[in-house]
């Protein structure tokens, strides 16, 4: 009896240690990023473009407004491309298991998911940059959509599969067409899972630098107003973070940390937003 209780206690302690071991790096990273970067977060950081290194060194106003806007534009473009296709593919995977294309789709989706991100950038380069003759936000968005697609498809599939099959049969038995049952009865029930999937895809893609290297390319200045963000080279946070970090200027180093804070906050805000939108009204029994 006593021995069992001691065993129980030991396991419990091990589990707590494991939990801390998981959380600790996260806390250290966030803490360190904030300490290093917070000094560079000022008004100019959100209103000025970066310009040449001399601006920072001479203390002239400099910032990353073009990077923040660029990141938002490129990520939104990627979502706009990946969400409809990804959800469609996920629906195909879960709702039409008897379809002859289904096994092929599954293999290709998994392959795409495992493919190195830089290859996806290379492909977007061939597909968009070469024909357009210029690096662009659009090319970056396409490259990131390749990152998002398989994640969204898989997450959609598992979210839909978590809804009991009987719901679909009940819908069909009422003489409702199959697609309508999926859209009106199954999808709403799975919306929390769907949103989580979109979010995972967004968070993953928002942090990718590799696919953007030769697609959106980077830019020290704001592109031309309005369509410049789509058709001209565009700066993005992960990529800017990298180039600031490898630069020889300490002023740029702290701006790099600040960029990391902004990236972190963007992802956290996205999570919070998705939680808010899908706040659980419905609990499945």
């Amino acid at each position, binding site marked *: 009896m006593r021995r069992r209780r001691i065993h129980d206690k030991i396991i419990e302690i091990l589990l707590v240690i494991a939990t801390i071991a998981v959380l600790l790096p996260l806390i250290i990273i966030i803490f360190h990023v904030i300490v290093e970067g917070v000094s560079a977060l000022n008004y100019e950081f959100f209103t000025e473009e970066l310009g040449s290194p001399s601006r920072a060194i001479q203390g002239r106003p400099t910032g990353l407004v073009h990077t923040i806007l660029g990141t938002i534009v490129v990520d939104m473009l990627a979502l706009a491309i990946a969400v409809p296709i990804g959800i469609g593919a996920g629906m195909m995977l879960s709702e039409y*298991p*008897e379809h002859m294309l289904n096994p092929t789709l599954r293999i290709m989706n998994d392959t795409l998911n495992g493919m190195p991100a830089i290859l996806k950038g290379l492909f977007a380069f061939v597909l968009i940059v070469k024909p357009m003759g210029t690096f662009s936000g659009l090319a970056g968005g396409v490259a990131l959509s390749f990152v998002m697609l398989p994640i969204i498809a898989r997450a959609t599939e598992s979210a839909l599969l978590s*809804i*009991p099959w*009987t*719901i*679909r*049969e*009940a*819908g*069909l*038995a*009422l*003489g*409702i*067409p*199959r697609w*309508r*049952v999926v859209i*009106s*009865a199954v999808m*709403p*029930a799975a*919306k929390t899972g769907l949103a989580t999937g979109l979010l995972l895809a967004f968070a993953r893609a928002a942090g990718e630098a590799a696919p953007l290297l030769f697609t959106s390319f980077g830019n020290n200045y704001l592109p031309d107003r309005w369509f410049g963000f789509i058709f001209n080279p565009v700066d993005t946070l992960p990529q800017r973070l990298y180039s600031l970090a490898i630069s020889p200027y300490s002023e740029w180093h702290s701006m790099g940390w600040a960029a990391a804070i902004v990236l972190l906050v963007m992802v956290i805000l996205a999570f919070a937003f998705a939680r808010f939108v899908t706040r659980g*009204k*419905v*609990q*499945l*029994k």
Partner: protein
Amino acid sequence: MEINIMKSKDLPEETLKTVHSNMENHDIVMKPRMETKNLTVKYGQAYGVKNISLPFKDKTVTALIGPSGCGKTTFLRALNRMHDLTREAKIEGEVLLDNKNIYDEDINPVNIRRKIGMVFQKPTPFPTMSIYDNVVAGLKLVGIRNRSLLDEVCEKALKQAALFEEVKDRLKTPAVSLSGGQQQRLSIARALAVEPEVLLMDEPTSSLDPQATLRIEELIHVLKKDITIIIITHNMQQAARVSDKTAFFYVGDLIEAGDTNTIFTNPKEKQTEDYITGRFG
């Protein structure tokens, strides 16, 4: 059937006689409303049901009985093409509705399921929809938007399923907030709202308490004036109470079918008798 009609007080003697004689003619002339011919359902190599030929007369209740795993549900699901979603399931033979095979190439399964409704063993409310939206789902999701029509249908269906009084003040609340028994009656109301011509019921009362079960059985009595009902039940008393015809299934075979009275009092086959008297199954 005859006794029921004789008993109803509000009809004059004259009308009763005509109704009666019409019904007799009906019986002789009428072809079955629905009928299976050599229906076989296979899952891969395994047989679900083998070579079932069974007629279902219009406006009658047929009970399918037999031990678990004998193919009743497999058979029932073949009657409104529910197996279409199962890749492994193969259908052979014919299922005729008004003499037309519902598995013919030119038949749209969606239209078939509209005519042949189904109530499942477990309640299946659409989880994100309100009680109201659940009941009218079969109309709303195919494009019927007429508010007053939907209201009317909703009330009628809920009353038929003996649920209206309990939920009339909270039609807009989520359907999943109802108890299990209420959810089952909701599922029945939803099936009735699209006014099917044939209603398939797979142990509809197995999750209900005796009170609700009684109400569903009363409902079946009322419904059979208008529609054809095929019901699976494990409850012999229920089969005897609600059905006009009974079919006994055993290991994928149809052993015996006929008038409920005959099956229960004077079965031809030994297996049927053993099952009904509780010696196995």
